[in-house]
């Protein structure tokens, strides 16, 4: 009898536990649900809508659900588009090269020349201080510096270095690149700093032990190991520059064009399907660029 009761309770126990518990698979799905919903509602759905609209027809006042491809034909067939892409790529290239150079050396200084971790963190936070103000304000504050009667020109004039104000300081490609470098360098510093901090300092000693000079240590050990951080920074900067319209508009004074600015103009003319087609082309283009970067550098160990 005693054994029977015990086996009965054993049979009841697991059944009761089962009725309250979900299977591990269901729990996993439940845990992934919130993020799936957010990404679905705010990322996938809008992109899908843009893709759908890009095939619609439109006139000066209205859009008509349809399946036409002339939005793409117009975008890809126009020499303006190609010129604008080329111009945007030119900005991206300049800004990338300059932010990579500055970003690497700032990160290198922070990671290898500042000895205490506390000081490293303090200086890194100092780098982020400009981010306490908005992009627009940081951009606009260049105008009094670079303008015709701005700080730079008046200083140069007063010092007698130039006879008349330099015109290309503001409302030029130079101003656009300068403002973008200012806005985006930190996106390069952060991932490179992160990578450099992970480099075992004994690797540098081992290289020195093997007779490497300072320059050889940099090119043979530190640069190869910093590549993943550089790749992540590159992805940040390139995607930000490719999608930028406000900096280009403000700093070039409307004289220069970028892909995003072209889209903004189309939207202000209510040509939404054309802008949508343009957006899809840009999205594909940027994704191809990111894919190319990932092919060159393996960033998996950074994530």
């Amino acid at each position, binding site marked *: 009898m005693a054994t029977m009761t015990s086996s009965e309770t054993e049979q009841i126990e697991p059944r009761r536990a089962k009725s309250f518990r979900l299977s591990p698979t269901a729990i996993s799905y439940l845990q992934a649900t919130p993020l799936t919903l957010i990404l679905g509602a705010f990322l996938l759905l809008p992109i899908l809508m843009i893709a759908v609209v890009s095939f619609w027809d439109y006139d000066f006042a209205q859009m008509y659900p349809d399946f036409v491809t002339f939005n793409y034909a117009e975008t890809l067939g126009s020499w303006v588009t190609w010129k604008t892409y080329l111009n945007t790529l030119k900005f991206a290239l300049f800004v990338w090269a300059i932010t990579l150079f500055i970003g690497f050396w700032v990160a290198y200084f922070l990671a290898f020349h500042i000895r205490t971790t506390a000081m490293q963190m303090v200086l890194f936070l100092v780098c982020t201080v400009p981010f306490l103000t908005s992009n627009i304000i940081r951009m606009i504050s260049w105008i009094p510096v670079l303008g015709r009667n701005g700080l730079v020109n008046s200083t140069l004039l007063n010092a007698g270095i130039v006879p008349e104000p330099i015109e290309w300081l503001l409302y030029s490609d130079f101003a656009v690149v300068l403002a973008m470098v200012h806005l985006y360098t930190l996106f390069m510093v952060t991932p490179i700093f992160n990578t450099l901090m992970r480099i*075992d300092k*004994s*690797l540098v*000693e*081992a*290289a*020195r*032990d*093997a*007779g*490497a*000079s300072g320059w*050889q240590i940099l090119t*043979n*050990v530190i640069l*190869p*190991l910093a590549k993943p951080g550089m790749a992540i920074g590159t992805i940040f900067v390139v995607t930000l520059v490719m999608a930028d319209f406000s900096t280009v508009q403000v700093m070039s004074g409307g004289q220069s064009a970028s892909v995003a600015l072209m889209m903004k103009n189309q939207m202000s003319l209510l040509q939404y399907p054309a802008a949508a087609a343009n957006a899809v082309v840009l999205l594909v283009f940027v994704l191809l660029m990111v894919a190319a970067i990932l092919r060159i550098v393996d960033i998996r160990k950074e994530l």
Partner: protein
Amino acid sequence: MSKAAEIDIVSVSKIYGTTTAVESISLKIPAGTYCCLLGPSGCGKTSTLRMIAGHESISSGDIRLGNSVITDLPPAKRGTAMMFQSYALFPHLDLIDNVAFSLKMKGLGKDERRAKAMDMLRLMQLESYATRRPAQLSGGQQQRVALARALITDPEALLLDEPLSALDPFLKIRMRAELKKLQTSLGITFVHVTHSQEEAMALADLIVVMNDGRIEQAAHPRTIFERPATAFVARFMGEHNVISGRMTKSAEDRVVLSVPETDREFQATGDNCELMETANIAIRTDRVRIAAPLEKGLGFTGSISNIEYRGASVKLSVSGAGIEDFTVIVSDAAFFANPVKVGEAIPLSWNREDAIVLGHLKH
């Protein structure tokens, strides 16, 4: 490859700010010696090694390697090679490029340096892994790569910073044997930093016991174990009971020590028996017998506080006569022929020559 060099360290100090890591040590390591720097963490052994390697500046003093003073030379110009604690292999290079790194820095052509590196890998029996990255290797293999990378510079002395600490116990013993074999076949000077006295005993021709930035004793392992110079050495090497007390009598080669509070007296022999106020004596744990002493001062009676069975031997912890935790190792045969229990009072005794006087470090 046999061009071993003598290392001569002359009153070298290392001072970090206000703390002294190494305090004016002098040491001669003969050419072709396997030398172990042994001590607890923070004793200055790694600083000493890094000063020999050139990765740490020398605050004062000089280091000579062979016929040249290397005090101010950069690491690669010293004729030493260092093997780092975590091996410090370059994660982005395959084994050939890791081993060939120093040759590349010297500007050797690609084919030549790869051929040399391959030879070195073959010596370490790693040729089949040549194109792998360090992360794809086991700890023991990584260590052999680190060795190959250090040895390809053809050093006069190899400096090893806790080379076995990252390995599991089984591998540790195997790599230990490999290191010893390698040193014998290369004939160069090895300086090996470790905190394991077992490792040092197994490997070294010369053990340098360090504590608090100073050398407590530098001698052959057998001398270190049989005649520890100081109480620290006796305690650190283990298998010694150290008794501290007041020195009451001193003859030419013998002292009498009196333990405070109980006034029990112990005899001990030694070389430096000048009369001092306090003294320490050491008694080997395996030389203590469970028997009444034949002579006064060569034993005591205490009660057993713990018994540990260790297979071939049994470890007894005994307290009494003002001595806490006196360890006795008896063979299993002797123990089971006449078993004792915890709490029992037993007489302990030892021979006169097994109790030795320990010196003090002169400050």
